[in-house]
């Protein structure tokens, strides 16, 4: 690993973490959503650097381009683009939440330390889309088809739930 690669990796990581912190501290939902989009873009850069360009492109297309647009669309539809009074919990609850998340972070860091061989088993290859597609359409074909059913159910459910009158 050369120094420029490492610098880029830390740079994208820093962007992701700082944007995530800004995201959870914004009171207004719209800037929060935009900071989350920033996290998605930084993560996409990290994916590309981790030899997963296909996942990086899908991240930008699906997460930043579709899911977050739906979020912002709902915020505008419900006219929520302002800070709500009771959004943040009380100070004690916030302190407790900070303690819980710090404890979780410590747990995660301890668990992931020194458990796995840290050197890649296979050297990096240029073409990573072909193995992904081969795996997706042979070994995981049933799961792949089931996700299409899940998406269909989600579409029907979303339309039914968001309809003006739901007659049950």
């Amino acid at each position, binding site marked *: 690993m050369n120094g420029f690669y*490492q610098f880029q990796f830390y740079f994208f*990581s820093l962007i*992701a*973490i700082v944007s*995530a912190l800004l*995201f*959870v501290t914004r009171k207004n*939902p719209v800037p*929060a959503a935009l900071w*989350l989009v920033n*996290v998605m873009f930084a993560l996409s850069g*990290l*994916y590309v650097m*981790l030899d*997963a360009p*296909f*996942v990086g492109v*899908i*991240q930008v297309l*699906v997460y930043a381009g579709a*899911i977050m647009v*739906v*979020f912002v669309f*709902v915020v505008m*539809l*419900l006219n*929520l683009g302002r800070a*709500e009074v009771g*959004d943040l*919990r009380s100070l004690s*609850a916030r302190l407790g*939440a900070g303690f*819980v*998340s710090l404890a979780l*972070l410590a747990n*995660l*860091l301890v668990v*992931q330390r020194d458990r*796995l*061989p*840290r050197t890649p*088993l296979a050297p*990096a290859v240029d073409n*990573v889309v072909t*193995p*992904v597609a081969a*795996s*997706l359409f042979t*070994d*995981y074909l049933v*799961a*792949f088809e089931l996700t299409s059913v*899940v*998406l269909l159910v*989600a*579409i029907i*459910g*979303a339309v039914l*739930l*968001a309809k003006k009158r739901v007659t049950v």
Partner: protein
Amino acid sequence: MINEALIVSAILFSIGVLGVLTRRNAIILFMCAELMLNAVNLSFVALAKLHGVTGHVFVVMVMTIAAAEAAVGLAIVISVFRQFGTVEMSALRTLRG
């Protein structure tokens, strides 16, 4: 770089948990869930460098399910807003004794 990616993933996941625990706005809670899913995806991609491309397949599945979850969840948020006039979770106290 795998270690660093896993550390970043852990930090992002903890930030997502922090958001879920400190906020009451349902839309922000959903966005925090998306942040946690993204953190897990980063772990999958990092570990795919060790264990082959299966991790990428998992990431694709997670993204699909996240899209479905966002669609249904936001539809529920719209219904809740129609019913209660707000998306604050503390307003949903119908089941409180």
